[in-house]
Structures are given as C-alpha cells and as structure tokens.
C-alpha cells in the first residue's frame, strides 16, 4: 500500500497548478460576476491537452489514468468551480459513456474531436419531472423504419455545457411500459435540426458554467446514433454517473482545499487585539478540523479513482467520495467565510464564491440523499 503520488502524478499536479494559477484564477471572479462561460480558457486548455486526459491514445487522448483526471479537476476547482465542472462534464459525462458503451465506429467518429476539445461533451438525463427518479422520463424516441431514423421529442433541464457542447448523451423513453428498462441512450449532435438550447439558468454558484435546458422537437438522428442497446439507457446513465461522481467529488475537494489554502494565508495576515488571528486557538482548531476533513476526502476520492482505474467495483467508493467530499466542501467553505469575517462575506474575496460553488456539489450528479441510498444499499445487501 502506497499513499504517495507517483512522479508522473506529481509533475502533472505541478503543471495543472501552474496553469490554474496563471490562466484560470485571474478570471475566476470576473466570470462569476458576469455569469460568463470562460471560452478563452477552453482554448488554452485545448493547447495543453486537457480534454482527453484519461482517454486511450488511439482515440486522440493522452492515455493517462483516472487519478490524473481527478487531480486535474481538483486543481482547477481550487481556483474556479466553473472551469472544473466544464472539464468534468465533458470528460465523465460526455466522453465516458461513448468510451464505455460505444461501438468502435462511434468511438472513432466522436472521440478524436472530443479529446482535442474541438467538440465539448454534455449529458442530458434530468427533466422537469425526472431528477433522482430517472424512470419519470418524458422525453421519447420513436423509430421511423422508413428512414431508419430515431425521432426524439422532449427537453432536458439544468444541462452543464449546454450551448457550448457539440455532443450530448441524451436519454429517452423508447418503451414506456418497461419503466427504467424502456430508457435508451442516444448521441445527439448540437447541429441536428429541431435541437435547441434554452436561456442560461440564473444560479447561486458555478455562475460561469453554461447551464441551460436542451429542447428537442422532432429531432431526427440516424439509427447508428443509438448508444449501447435499446432499453439499456438506465444502465448507461447509472454507470456514467458513477464516474461523474468522481469528477464532482474532485470539484468539491478542490473547492474545500482552495478555500482552506486561502484562509491559511488570510489568518496569518489579519490582526485583531494586537496579534494575527492565526494565533487564536479557535482559529487553529477550526483549521485543524478543516485540514483533517480535506485530507480524509482526498483519500476516499483517490481510492475511488484508483479502483476505477483497476477496473474493480467502485460504485460505492465513488458514492462515498462524492457524499463526503461535497458535504465537507460545504462545511469547510462556510468555515472559511466565517474565519474571514466581514471580508469573507464580501464578493471581493474568493471564499464566498467557493461557498456558493460548493453547494451544488451536494446536489448534482446524485444528491447526498441518493449517495446515502447507494451506500446503504451496498452494505445492507
């Protein structure tokens, strides 16, 4: 058992840290204030090869492992929650299902242009009436035998990278009578006729992230755009979300870790009653708790990443990592704001943004409650 990162992981961590510090952090405040998607960062990330970290080389990826990808999301989230989830949604939700369930032909058609970042990826499962309960899907797909096409109608809510992505994994009912076994996954390109994107959501946090509704009105896609098998969509969704949880856990950990680092610097400089607030025992004990929780979350997350890499069952590990990392992220960022005092509440300082960004990690890609269902289900089996 080895708890140390390899030299490759360490060098990679240093590279992403430099990139995050110099390219992402300087605009993190601005894109939050302006609720603007950081398209210029996407261009810079493309030049460094960020969009195919854990995708095999034959599809244009870097051929790296899961842990490298986890580290990338974590390091980006330390300075900007928006940028980190853009990468996570693209990788874990957009590309992973194609890699896992796609035919060789589908992989060759989509992945080489996704790994370069020319095409970003997105994922549409949630609907107005179907969130945690995926079986409530209202989006339907009907097969037109005369043209060998699927016709898709419906809409998807709160979709990350909406309008920025070119490739969306969309779930639709192909047989309502079968419940979750009647759900099928499809690959839909953004330029299909009848496909449109609604207005950007006004959110509490990750405000630069492009979150919007996807609307499909008689969208016709060829039969070869079906992903996996007919009726297999629920499995595609659940297995994809297992991986997505690693991405969100990495985002949550990064936010907590970034807020903690900022707070450590701040308390050393801030003086009250003639000494730095770092010299007060309350500050010291709070920081000790925050640091311990961040490290514990990191261990859970790295273990889940390594189990996924080793092709071991990791669903429960990912759920625990996501549950714990997101909850401590909320706690640590809230404490960071408290330690900053009045300045923490000001939008001029980064910790209030991190606190707002942290909240979503307890909600998307399976709420904390869903994670508890997954974990308890595994131990009570």
């Amino acid at each position: 058992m080895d708890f140390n990162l390899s030299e490759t992981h360490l060098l990679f961590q240093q590279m992403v840290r430099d990139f995050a510090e110099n390219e992402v952090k300087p605009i993190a405040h601005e894109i939050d204030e302006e609720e603007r998607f950081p398209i210029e960062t996407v261009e810079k990330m493309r030049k460094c090869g960020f969009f195919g970290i854990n995708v095999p080389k034959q599809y244009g990826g870097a051929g790296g492992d899961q842990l490298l990808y986890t580290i990338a999301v974590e390091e980006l989230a330390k300075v900007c929650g928006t940028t980190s989830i853009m990468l996570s949604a693209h990788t874990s939700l957009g590309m992973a299902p194609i890699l896992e369930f796609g035919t060789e032909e589908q992989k060759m058609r989509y992945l080489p242009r996704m790994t370069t970042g020319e095409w970003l990826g997105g994922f549409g499962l949630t609907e107005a009436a179907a969130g945690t309960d995926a079986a409530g899907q209202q989006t339907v797909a009907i097969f037109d035998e005369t043209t060998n096409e699927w016709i898709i109608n419906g809409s998807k809510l709160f979709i990350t990278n909406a309008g920025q992505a070119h490739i969306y994994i969309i779930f639709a009912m192909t047989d309502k009578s079968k419940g979750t076994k009647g759900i099928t996954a499809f690959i839909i390109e953004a330029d299909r006729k009848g496909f449109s994107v609604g207005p950007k959501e006004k959110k509490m946090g990750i405000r630069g992230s492009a979150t919007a509704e996807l609307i499909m009105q008689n969208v016709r896609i060829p039969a070869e755009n079906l992903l996996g098998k007919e009726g297999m969509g629920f499995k595609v969704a659940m297995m994809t979300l297992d991986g997505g949880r690693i991405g969100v856990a990495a985002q949550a950990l990064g936010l907590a870790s970034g807020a903690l680092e900022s707070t450590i610097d701040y308390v050393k400089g801030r003086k009250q009653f003639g000494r730095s607030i770092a010299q007060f025992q309350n500050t010291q004990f709070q920081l000790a708790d925050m640091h311990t929780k961040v490290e514990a979350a990191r261990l859970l997350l790295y273990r889940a990443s390594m189990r996924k890499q080793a092709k071991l069952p990791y669903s429960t590990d990912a759920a625990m990592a996501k549950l714990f990392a997101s909850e401590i992220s909320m706690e640590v960022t809230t404490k960071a704001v408290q330690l900053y005092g009045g300045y923490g509440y000001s939008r001029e300082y980064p910790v209030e943004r991190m606190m707002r960004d942290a909240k979503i990690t307890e909600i998307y890609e399976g709420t904390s409650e869903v994670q508890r269902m997954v974990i308890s289900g595994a131990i009570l089996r």
Partner: protein
Amino acid sequence: MDITVLVKQVPNTAEIRIDPVKNTLIRDGVPSIINPDDKAGLEEALKLKDQFGATITVVSMGPPQAQLALREALAMGADRAILVSDRKFGGADTLATSTTLVAALKQLKSDLIIAGRQAIDGDTAQVGPQVAEMLDIPQVSYVQKLHYDGKQTLQIQRLVEDGYYELEVDFPCLITVLAEANKPRYMHIHNLVDVFSREIEIWDFERIKPDVNQIGLTGSPTKVKKSYTKGVKQSGKIVEAANAEEAAEAIVTKLQELFMI
C-alpha cells in the same frame, strides 16, 4: 534544423525564504525549476519547430536530480534530452562548465544553439558566450525577439541598455535569450503522461572525454572572495543630438564635467 537548447535546473528563488535569525537563504524544500531565461530559449526553439520542423535536443549539466528539468523540457515538446553528469564535473565555475558542455556539444550536430541569458542562481551570463567562443561560432546575446523566414539567416533583436540592435546572423550560431522574449508554453499533457518512460541520456566523463585539467574544481580559476548585494545602478541618460559633431561635443562636455578629461 537541429537545435540544441542548454538548460540549467535552479532553485525557484521566488519561493526561497530568508532565515530571520541566521540571515541566510533557506534552500530546504525549495522546488527546482528550469531557469526562466533557458525556458524562454526552449520556447523559441519550440516555435521554430512548430513553424519549420526541427529536432530539439536539450542539454543540461548537473547532478542526477537535474533529470526532472529535462523531463519537463521533453513534456514541453523537446525531442531528445542529455544530462552531462559526472562527479568529476563537480565544483565547476563558468569556464569549466563551458569546457565540459563544449566537449558534449562537439558530439552533436547543431545548426542553432540556444541558451538563456543567465541563471537566476548565479547571474553570471557567461556560459552561453563562452560556449560560442570555444566552438568558434557567431553569437548574439540578450535576444529579445527572433524571426526566421526559413532561409539562410536568423533575424534578431538584441536588447541593449538604451534600445535594441537589429542583427542578422548565419548558421551555425549561438544565441542567448531573455525570459521577457516570450511566455513559454505549458507542458503538454499527452507528452507528460509518458515522460518518465522516456530516455534521458547520461553523458559522463568517459562519454565526452574533456581535458581533465580543464574541468571540475581543478579547471575552475574563479575563486569567490565574498558575496554581497550589489547597489542599485542608475539608468543611463539619453542625449539627443542632430549630428555626429554635436554628439561628440556633448560627450566631451560631459567628460569634462566629470573631470575625466
């Protein structure tokens, strides 16, 4: 084109703290980086490679841990990495370092050798020029801008105190580059993932066979008497003159004012 880039691994002086009691530098735990001027030199090489195609060899002289700097250079896009390393090379001043590097460089075909202006830990700015002299090739130091159109010569802007020179230089040649010349690219993730399985060639004494009396501590005439923080230098004064005669008169007047003539 074959380009050789000389790089030095240096402590990241931005992260060095000073021991408040002993008033000395705390070097422990300070991360090592590629010297900034050298990294800018590598970026110029990579830009030439992007544009015209080139094989880039990075060469460093240093202890085994300097391999990390070479790996970073490979991950940025260099093709080949050579570490000139042997206990016999230890304790070298700039002259002995240049002598050692030249012994290695003579075994490489280079149309262009790029070095950084100077290293942030020594600040001598001597190794690049010494290497060029020993190889007897043209050199341009303090390069702030480089232009190449794929033909016979390199067009260069060389920074001087009150402006810059525009120069043209034939191949093979050596240039020393300023950190301000560009913003070096990040390591590319696709290169980085495999970079620890790439080969770093270790060239030792036997491999390059330099004159044993000219290298290491023995070959180093420099003796450090003391080190101190240098004073702030005033910036130069520019005198506008209409013609050469007026300019000469202004200089004579100034020298007389200073009782120098």
